[in-house]
């Protein structure tokens, strides 16, 4: 589904990504792990086109590196940013409406289905997005992206700053998304969440992939965890 190779990215003269290589297959949950500042968010921003990338990013076999964000989204890449970016003055329903693409046909998700899955959002459908709690905003941001029926969804730090109960809800939603054949690229700092729901994991350090494995192999790789993940 997604194949990234020799990906480099810069902020001004700072060389942030240095030849990142990884792939995500259909229906797979892949986590991108690593400490703050190692380039995980820059990686997903390069894929969606928010940061100008150098190298190759192939999505469903087609090169998307350097294409405009809206075009990449149209090809089926969904992105949920770290700060959620809920439109504060628009209602929950309007926020969800914004996720629908103009020429969308039979989507995997409908608004009524989303409201069924998240009664909290249904109850507050006509309330401004800005007054929702952090957990509700995260749900809304993820559901808004789902309304656009992506084939792959990239989610940046979905559980950051949220209560354990909400983290649990989000984990369940991620598994539900994957069960419908949507690939997930998860940027996550909470190791326990990533270990529990991921099929495969990549660990990043200094703008490169330093480890590739499965939750089972990473659990055994004490050296990798202490060198690149644990604080």
């Amino acid at each position, binding site marked *: 589904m997604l194949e990234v190779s020799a990906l480099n990215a810069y902020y001004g003269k700072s060389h942030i990504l240095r030849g990142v290589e990884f792939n995500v297959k259909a229906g797979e949950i892949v986590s991108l792990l690593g400490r703050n500042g190692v380039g995980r968010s820059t990686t997903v921003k390069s894929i*969606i086109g928010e940061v100008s990338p150098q190298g190759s990013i192939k999505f469903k076999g087609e090169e998307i590196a350097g294409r405009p964000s*809206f075009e990449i989204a*149209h090809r089926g890449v969904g992105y949920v940013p770290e700060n959620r970016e809920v439109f504060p003055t628009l209602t929950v329903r309007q926020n969800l409406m914004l*996720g629908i693409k103009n020429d969308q046909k039979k989507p995997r998700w409908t608004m009524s289905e989303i409201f069924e899955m998240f009664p909290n959002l249904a109850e507050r459908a006509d309330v401004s997005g800005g007054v929702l709690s952090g957990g509700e905003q995260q749900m809304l941001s993820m559901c808004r992206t789902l309304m656009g029926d992506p084939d792959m969804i990239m989610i940046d730090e979905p559980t950051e700053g949220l209560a354990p109960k909400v983290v649990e809800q989000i984990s369940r939603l991620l598994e539900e998304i994957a069960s419908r054949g949507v690939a997930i690229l998860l940027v996550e700092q909470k190791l326990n969440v990533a270990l529990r729901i991921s099929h495969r994991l990549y660990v990043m350090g200094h703008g490169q992939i330093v480890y590739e494995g499965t939750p089972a192999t990473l659990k055994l790789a004490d050296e990798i965890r202490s060198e690149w993940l644990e604080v």
Partner: protein
Amino acid sequence: MLEVFVFSTLNGLVTGLLLFMLASGLTLIFSMMGVLNFAHASFYMLGAYFAYSISLKLGFWAGLLIAPLLVGAFGALVERYALRRVHAHGHVAELVFTFGLAFLVEEAVQFFWGADTKNYQSPDLLNFPLFTLFGQEFSAYRGFMITISVGIFLALYYMLTRSRIGIIIQAAITHPHTVANLGHNVPLIFMAVFGVGTALAGVAGVIAGPVLTTFPGMAVVLGSIVFVIVVIGGLGSLGGAFVASLMIGLLQSYAIASNLGMPDLLNWLGLEFSRDHPLNDLWTLTLPQIAPVLPFLLLVLVLIFRPTGLAGKREE
């Protein structure tokens, strides 16, 4: 007294609503690009001139329909092929560009249509008094101006707050990256908003041309007032622009109609002044004389006491 008040109110409404048609586009474009389009009133002037030329061949109504479309298309082209490229070089470059464009349009208008005032007439169909009140006539054309302006305001309000495209525009103004990431073509949206904003200015030009006269200086006359409105209303606020437009329209209209002046104020305060005093000109000033300055005075007051404007938000 009552008749003066009623007619001043009606005339103030006509001017205020006309100003809003210009201010709404300007404030929308500002919200999007973060820069004031100094050439905005030039699109208003182009509307009047295009409509004048079309009206000579096809009549007023064809001009009302075609001229705004031409102006909007020109606006969209300006955004697509000029402003978007200039945008990459920052706000100062954009400001200088729109300044230059305003001069260019004024020169072009003089080149193609000449420097004289054009005999652009309101349609015969509306050349009758709509009603007579206190012995004074209110022309049907002015009633038509009010109807068109209110109609456009309602359509714009509905479009921006209720329709899907309006919601996308609102979101794109504050979060362009997020909207693009959801699959919406933000540059196309911005071009469309610029086109619609300039087309609105074009409509204002078409309907104001016959009343406020069509001449190459008409952009300068109204342009500065529109900037005052956008700042008083709060940069980027459509509601604020609406209130400020009506405020300025009514303020000017009441001031022109009033017969008050400095002598009345001095008498009221019990002060006397001599005709030989060096400041005699100041003591004898009347409200109609200073009416054109009032919007700017109001601007100064707003900038001192509420710099964000009536409905503007402080930049974070």
